[in-house]
């Protein structure tokens, strides 16, 4: 029995029963004594719940504010920081607030901690200034700030803005091999497995270490491992120029802050792997906070963590260490978002691992008060998103306010040029973003797609912002009652997948930054979660097949959809393929995509979600003979294939019996790897390669595929 099932069974049999006082009837009786539900209140009632007025002293301000609201409504948030307000802090030229004293910072932190729950409609800026702006913001209000007038933005944006990556690279004498599929070419993303063409470096979660294995002709041999100790987990890694960079997370007693039993930190450990059999630790950098994400760009690691604040004690300030004692970030390197709502610091570290030893001189760290959600890195620029406070809406006729029905996303642009972290500008867009692929930078413009709520219904938007994060153009409210599932930008076009019951692909023309327009759309059942440009005319979507059940739509398997976008005004579904009962990590994580040599094929790991009919009978998933090649289909495993895991002692252990079962007409109840071609406007399953265990990733070296199992093992398969 798996650990999960074992523990779940124990909880389900614990005999705990809620007391009678918590029965639905008892609760119903108590609700009758409570203030009426906000939705049922008379129109002239105070919309704020009676139990939660955190700042009742502000109410008299409402009447005053109502008079001034029209003027204030058009003032961007940062402009509200004008000297006329009794501001406790001031804004730098990027629109972020700065602190001149610890006391100011403590006050800002206190405001966030107190307001975090329940969600407040009062911004941190208002807490700091003691003023309340009750103006109603226009639906499409954007508040951007100028921050880099002295700098040439073109320099910041010089470099590739997007890529169709996952391509191979090989140095002389090194076998051709895959790299991690990333959003932007030349901007690497950490993953649980990497290869340099000779060795495979992969995270073993079971052993909590990175294992280094020699890989050649389908044989693997473990030669070394680097372990994390104690409470430090091993999350993911990079390899570059003879270095292995391991990123982990730690819960440390040393880092405990007042009132909290733990404090997370993110640990970057650099090893010299010039000789992979003898990795040598050359430095370690610690930055407090949960790992949000990281990038490797221009040889430097950009590390973003989210450091939650639990109380108002001053020891919550983010701390860093590079081999020495942990020390708090200096006040001068701490900023604050003017509309922060989350009690957390966003910590940005830029680490240059080059050089013999990691030193404090090679690291720049700064922090911004206000939590973060996603990052996108174009190379020269890092964009960090987070929740932004949304104003309570005020009815101009009645003067009454109501709770916002949507949320805003705040975006911070940070320049990473020349190894320095420089805050450039902040902006706010309406709605929330799906993931990092919702964002893109192209020719000096930042593009972001969002989903927002309007009158209780999801609508979708696409914004184009300039270098100062000011809106130059936007597209509002498309695909009503649907929400974004995937976005991909290709030059001056955006491909947007939304979903409710079908999967429409929208093509948006962004060639005029002031006027993004929908060119065309096409619908297909199911939905894609990752869009991969195949060639100039085709985009391949990986995602879910769906079916309609008693309670509406639900996902039931894997789906591929090939879109013909050669005529943007009239896109078509060129081909599609789906199978119920299987799932793939590709549906959740783009890094699970393997692009074959010369982009000849795509490969993805898959596993079974259920066995049709129950019992132990194997289910034939790939029973469509037409979709399978009639020859060359057998997974004819050469001698010596399989995993050969040594104990790190360097001895060559014998092959293990890991020959996958031969599949003629398709997988018989096995997990495995799908090799897919999307050439010529057709989806073709080139091969279905069964594996012994479920795989999380697959890579290739030379003529061999290697699959990383969830149990931290490696299986190998001939590619042809």
């Amino acid at each position, binding site marked *: 029995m798996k*650990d999960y099932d*074992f523990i779940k069974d124990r909880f389900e049999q614990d005999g705990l029963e809620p007391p009678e006082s918590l029965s639905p009837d008892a*609760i119903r009786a108590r609700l009758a004594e409570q203030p009426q539900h906000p939705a049922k209140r008379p129109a002239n009632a105070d919309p704020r719940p009676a139990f939660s007025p955190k700042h009742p002293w502000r109410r008299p301000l409402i009447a005053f504010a109502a008079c001034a609201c029209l003027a204030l409504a058009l003032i961007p948030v940062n402009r509200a920081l004008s000297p006329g307000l009794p501001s406790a802090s001031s804004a730098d030229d990027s629109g972020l607030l700065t602190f001149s004293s610890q006391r100011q910072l403590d006050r800002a932190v206190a405001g966030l901690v107190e307001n975090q729950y329940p969600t407040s409609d009062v911004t941190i800026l208002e807490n700091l200034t003691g003023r309340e702006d009750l103006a109603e913001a226009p639906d499409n209000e954007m508040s951007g700030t100028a921050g880099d007038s002295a700098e040439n933005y073109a320099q910041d944006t010089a470099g590739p803005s997007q890529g169709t990556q996952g391509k191979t690279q090989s140095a002389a004498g090194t076998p051709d091999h895959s790299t991690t599929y990333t959003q932007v070419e030349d901007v690497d993303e950490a993953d649980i497995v990497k290869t340099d063409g000779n060795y495979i470096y992969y995270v073993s979660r079971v052993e909590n270490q990175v294992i280094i294995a020699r890989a050649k002709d389908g044989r693997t041999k473990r030669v070394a491992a680097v372990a994390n100790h104690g409470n430090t987990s091993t999350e993911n890694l990079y390899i570059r120029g003879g270095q292995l960079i391991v990123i982990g997370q730690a819960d440390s007693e040393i880092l405990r802050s007042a009132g909290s039993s733990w404090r997370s930190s993110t640990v970057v450990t650099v090893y010299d792997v010039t000789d992979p059999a003898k990795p040598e630790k050359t430095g370690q950098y610690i930055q407090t906070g949960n790992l949000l994400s990281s990038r490797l760009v221009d040889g430097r690691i950009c590390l973003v963590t*989210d450091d939650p604040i639990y109380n108002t004690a001053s020891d919550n300030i983010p701390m860093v260490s590079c081999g020495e004692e942990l020390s708090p970030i200096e006040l001068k390197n701490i900023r604050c978002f003017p509309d922060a709502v989350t009690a957390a610091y966003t910590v940005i570290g830029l680490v240059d691992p080059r050089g013999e030893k990691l030193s404090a001189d090679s690291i720049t760290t700064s922090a911004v008060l206000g939590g973060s959600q996603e990052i996108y890195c174009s190379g020269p620029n890092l964009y960090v998103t987070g929740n932004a406070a949304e104003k309570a809406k005020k009815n101009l006729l009645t003067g009454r306010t109501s709770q916002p029905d949507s949320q805003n996303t705040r975006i911070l642009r940070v320049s990473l040029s020349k190894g320095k972290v420089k805050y450039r500008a902040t902006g706010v867009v309406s709605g929330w973003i799906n993931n990092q692929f919702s964002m893109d930078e192209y020719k000096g413009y930042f593009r972001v797609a969002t989903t927002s709520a309007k009158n209780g219904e999801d609508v979708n938007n696409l914004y184009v912002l300039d270098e100062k994060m000011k809106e130059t153009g936007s597209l509002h409210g498309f695909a009503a009652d649907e929400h974004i599932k995937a976005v991909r930008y290709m030059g001056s076009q955006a491909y947007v997948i939304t979903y409710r019951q079908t999967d429409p692909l929208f093509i948006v023309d962004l060639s005029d930054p002031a006027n993004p327009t929908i060119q065309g759309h096409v619908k297909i059942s199911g939905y894609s979660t990752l869009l991969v440009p195949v060639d100039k005319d085709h985009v391949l979507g990986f995602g879910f097949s769906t079916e309609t059940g008693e309670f509406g739509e639900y996902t039931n398997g894997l789906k591929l959809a090939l879109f013909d976008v050669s005529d943007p005004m009239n896109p078509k579904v060129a081909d599609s393929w789906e199978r119920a009962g299987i799932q793939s990590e590709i549906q959740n994580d783009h890094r699970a995509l393997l692009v074959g040599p010369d982009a000849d094929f795509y490969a993805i790991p898959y596993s079974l979600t259920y066995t049709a009919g129950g019992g132990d009978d194997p289910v034939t998933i790939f029973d469509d003979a037409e979709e399978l090649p009639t020859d060359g289909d057998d997974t004819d495993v050469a001698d010596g294939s399989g995993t050969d895991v040594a104990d790190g002692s360097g001895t060559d252990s014998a092959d293990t019996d890991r020959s996958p079962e031969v599949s003629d007409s398709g997988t018989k109840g096995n997990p495995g790897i799908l090799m897919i071609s999307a050439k010529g406007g057709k989806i073709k399953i080139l091969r279905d390669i069964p594996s012994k265990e479920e795989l999380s990733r697959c890579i290739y070296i030379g003529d061999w595929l290697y699959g990383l199992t969830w149990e931290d093992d490696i299986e190998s398969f001939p590619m042809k």
Partner: protein
Amino acid sequence: MNEHDIIQKARQGDQDAFCQLYGQYRHRLYRYAFYRLGNEGDAEDAVSDCVLSAWQQIGSLRDPKAFPAWIFRILSGCCAKLIRQQIDRRKEDPLEPDTGAQAAGAGSFVGTRPTGTQATATGDIPGTEDSLLLRDALATLPEEDRNIVLLSIVAGFKSREIASMTGLTAGSVRSRLSRNLKKLRAFLEEQMEIPS
């Protein structure tokens, strides 16, 4: 009427729909609160506070599909508040029995294992024998990891959902879950082998 429709009605102020909705989550909410707080009295208070807050706020719930994460986020906040109260109580009266949960916000459970039938500070029956054993097992985990286990096992969220709720990455949630479930199992199996 499916859950989506029930949530929609509750959002519009339908008290019966809200209570029906609550009824579907009652056991999960209570179980989560019990293991976060360590005793039935505080768990009852937390769920009670949670449901009243939820009723007040459900009109502003944007997306019905987000209801499970939303209600557990509220409950988590209520639990945090009660943990703070437990810590304060303990500061005021160091002799007050440690219910286990008091350590949730202030340190490790290890060494403060409840004795099974011991009454809590509030005089409540502390729970069933099995629940106490599970509570002891959870006490061996750091607070954040304990929360992740509860969000997964008790509340039924997926790693990605927990990631978005906790601010961790999904990969981190998965690795923590895997590590901690193994740890819990080892603890429980060891305890079950000891003759009572």
